[in-house]
């Protein structure tokens, strides 16, 4: 402790700040800690502590419906992220480097889907999917529709993130590449893309997590055999929360932590350290 003039005041202030931080973090993470705790509770029903067990975790792999939901979620998140990242990057590049009639409008409308409540987007997609179903059964409720739905809300976000990165690039770099004989494609491939990579990586991770935890849009466009994890958890919760759900949720929380760490690593900018 300090031994200077008025140690008590600063000491008290320091303690107060620490206490406040603890309260805030409790507020944020206590519910998650509850789930983690409950996932090790041997009680089949209720939240009363009956003893420690890892049984629910061991049950998980045997639960085929969880596996299927897991695979569906990852497949959906992976493929929609791939599509949205490719399209979003192309959109960001096009909007930044080429003016075309209506490009300003496209730019202004871009954040719109971010602000629109998910439920509206979901209902709108439900209507479209209903119509498309009459064109071809593949376009009806199910994985294809969910893929399209997820890309719908991922794409603008990817485009906004990549465009922000694009705005920091010196246009002289691309001009220099072309001046040195690189074709447009070579310029994009060897200069623009590598320089955009941190932005694209961050955007892809963001899109991936958004898809992974989306419930509303998935719920509106899902069909037979297209149950994702959030939908499975929702369905299980309606039957009464089971310890398996807690175990699964805990696994997801850990996955989210891993993703956050990954995001931090990708966002580090090794090329622009100064």
């Amino acid at each position, binding site marked *: 402790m300090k031994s200077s003039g008025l140690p008590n005041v600063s000491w008290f202030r320091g303690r107060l700040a620490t206490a406040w931080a603890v309260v805030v973090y409790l507020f944020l993470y206590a519910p998650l800690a509850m789930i983690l705790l409950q996932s090790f509770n041997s009680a089949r029903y209720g939240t009363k502590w009956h003893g420690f067990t890892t049984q629910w975790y061991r049950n998980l792999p045997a639960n085929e419906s969880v596996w299927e939901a897991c695979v569906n979620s990852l497949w959906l998140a992976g493929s929609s992220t791939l599509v949205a990242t490719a399209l979003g990057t192309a959109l960001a590049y096009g909007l930044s480097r080429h003016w075309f009639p209506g490009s300003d409008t496209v730019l202004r409308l871009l954040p719109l889907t971010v602000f629109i409540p998910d439920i509206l987007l979901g209902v709108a997609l439900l209507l479209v999917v209903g119509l498309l179903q009459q064109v071809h059964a593949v376009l009806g409720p199910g994985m294809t529709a969910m893929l399209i739905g997820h890309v719908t809300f991922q794409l603008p976000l990817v485009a906004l993130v990549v465009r922000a990165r694009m705005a920091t690039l*010196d246009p*002289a*770099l691309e*001009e*220099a*590449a*072309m*001046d*040195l*004989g*690189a*074709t447009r494609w*070579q310029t994009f491939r*060897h*200069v623009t893309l*590598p*320089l955009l990579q941190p932005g694209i990586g961050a955007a892809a991770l963001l899109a991936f997590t958004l898809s992974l935890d989306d419930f509303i849009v998935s719920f509106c466009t899902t069909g037979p055999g297209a149950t994702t994890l959030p939908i499975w958890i929702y369905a299980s919760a309606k039957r009464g929360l089971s310890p398996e759900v807690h175990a699964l949720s805990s696994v997801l929380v850990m996955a989210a932590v891993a993703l956050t760490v990954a995001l931090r690593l990708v966002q580090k900018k090794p*090329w*622009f*350290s*100064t």
Partner: protein
Amino acid sequence: MPPEGRLATPSVSAAPIGKFVECATNEDVQSLSVDGILAEGGAETEPEPCALPAVECWNLARRFGDVTALDGVSLTVYRGEFFSLLGPSGCGKTTLLRLLAGLDAPNSGYIRLLGVDMTGVPPQQRPVNTVFQSYALFPHLTVYENVAFGLRMKRLPEPMVERKVREALALTRIHGLEQRKPAELSGGQQQRVALARALVNEPAVLLLDEPLGALDVHLRKQLQTELRQMQRRLGLTFIHVTHDQEEAFTLSDRIAVMRAGRIEQVGTPRQLYEQPRTRFVAQFLGHCNLIDGTAVGWSADRLLVQTALGLMEVAWTGSASPTLPVAADRRPPPTRGQQLTLAVRPERIRMRPDQGAGLGVNTFRAVVEEALYLGASIEYRLRSAGQLLTVLEGRNGHETVPYATGEQVLCAFSPTALTLLDD
């Protein structure tokens, strides 16, 4: 648009290929000069410009909305020349450079590089390379990869890429920095890498956009010397954009002074300084005294002008009579009574104490208003017939006492010190 230019266009894309096949047999960078590229035989590294034009611009105009960046620029730069575009910011010099590089297209007019029309030819296929103002080094690539970029884009075999990159790095005196990233280099080192990255492609014309602008004075002087030596040695055509008059004078064979999207005057540094054609050139390049007057007569080599300071005799290289045909580089004489402006450099005016003698031609009395001691010289502000004049007196040998403020002096200059301005 000349038809032969159109017909010649295909040879542009063919040129780089032939260029590299030929250069593969050369052993040192010095022989990779323009002459080698053009396969004209006798690979000489003479700094003397050939009479062949490297760059021809004809009536180039470029408008950005309501702003006219270039307004009818015609220009010829010869092979082996160190040519500078000099002017204040916003005069269109960088725009002109971008048009030459193909990074921008003119609204009208055309450009020929090595006699080939460049209309519609993208930057990738032009025989020019640029050193950008910001250097524009690729931040994600090492120094080596930056310099190798152009060669790799042309898919040259890797051993040849390595040899050429080593040569270019040696030429620009970059040692031991190959694996560094641009962010780890100093400004001067970045400038050298940018130069090496452009030169390694053996461009017919190297475009330099204020390449030394961001460097401190000492480094700038050093790199100026190196740049000039390099250009001489390689016999390349350099087109250099700058707003620094001293830099343009030190480096260039010829200079085009630009203002507001137009070329004011093209000439050697000496021509521009001693025979400025316009008010702007006279005052942009160092200090210049302007004297207004009226034409009263002329002979074959002299022009008589009545000014507030008295009768002035001007050395005149125009034709003797308005009725005689005027040579291309000469101007028609003014008509009697025409208003005109004369320019005289401060160091061309001689001063001596006024001893009450009579006034001859090109002689006038003045009063010293201010004397500024500059070390190597003394700058006087004189007033004569209501006009302020600046006179620079060098301390060349004779130990004279500086003139005092308020002292009356006699000023004189030779007819060749006076220049008639066009506007």
